[in-house]
């Protein structure tokens, strides 16, 4: 049994370790705390894998564990910005480093800042979208309907459109 768990854990690590590191670094700006959260996710994943029966894809399982542990971590934090639902956000928040030069890097920093200010589910949808997951997979991971996921993705695309020098069409925008 433990051998199977170890195999699953290693497979999850091969596929998703970078995505989990990015999630931790997005949720926690402080590098030490981000590292702690990353380890907390690894630990929760290891413990949870004894219950994995293959009812869903390993990817779905890993992302669910990672995002739920991250959401619990945020909920435990005493301080933090007030959470504003994505539908009420007018523009991407400013970041601490206004001298960032590369446009995409600036947008990504502002996106990360936005994620830190969103309620858990909105943040989870945006991070999964940034990871390149399809609406159907995001719906499977979060438990939201595909429609609810699409509404949020559309919203973030609209917010992003205002941050490129030349506005892109819906199709051109990533």
């Amino acid at each position, binding site marked *: 049994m433990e051998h199977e768990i170890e195999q699953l854990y290693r497979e*999850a690590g091969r596929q998703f370790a970078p995505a989990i590191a990015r999630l931790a670094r997005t949720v926690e700006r402080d590098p030490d705390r981000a590292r702690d959260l990353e380890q907390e996710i690894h630990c929760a994943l290891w413990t949870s894998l004894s219950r994995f029966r293959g009812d869903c894809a390993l990817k779905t399982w890993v992302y669910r564990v990672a995002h739920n542990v991250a959401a619990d971590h945020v909920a435990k934090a005493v301080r933090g910005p007030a959470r504003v639902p994505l539908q009420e956000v007018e523009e991407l928040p400013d970041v601490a480093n206004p001298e960032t030069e590369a446009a995409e890097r600036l947008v990504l920093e502002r996106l990360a800042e936005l994620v830190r200010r969103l309620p858990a589910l909105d943040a989870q949808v945006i991070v999964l979208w*940034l990871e390149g997951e399809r609406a159907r997979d995001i719906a499977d991971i979060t438990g939201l309907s595909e429609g609810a996921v699409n509404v949020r993705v559309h919203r973030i695309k609209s917010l992003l459109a205002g941050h490129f020098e030349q506005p892109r069409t819906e199709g051109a925008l990533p």
Partner: protein
Amino acid sequence: MTHPPFPGWTDAAHDSTFADPAEIKERAAGFTKTIRRRNMIEYAAGGIVLVPAALASVAAAWTGEYAFALALGALAAGIVIVLRNLHRRAGNLEHRPEEPCVVHLRHQYRRQYEALRSVPAWYIGPLVPGFLLLYGTVTWKSAEALGWRAALEGMALPVLATLAGGAFIVLLNRWAARGIRRKLDALDEME
């Protein structure tokens, strides 16, 4: 997976790896130890209140002050019930982070909501008989020496302070429960 919308996002931390399974096993064991240690600290904190009440009850019975013994015994029993309730609530926490995120969030909110809303039943209630008996006994004993008027006047402040403290705890928890209820409603609207 489709193409990530921003390659810059997925390029970050691309060399990250999972912690070694041996290290993770050790951490998981360490986590269990931490929970056990935290529980011990909570019991010790409960003991700081419980032991003096229980000892005072025994001492009162020893000296023939049976009314005080009963009151302090009821208070000690109330503390035991509160500690047991705390332990049960912590023990019943089923941690399943593999649930879909919305289900997980709803479970967390509902658990917090129920705990906050029912504070009068599981936290305040068990202590009420002990306090009533204690204040009643003190008033009765004072009245024997000073008369009822003076005894009641003397007890007014402690009784009011206790009532105010209890009401404050209940209201604070109700207020927090309402906040959680709003989050639960917002979750329902999201789907």
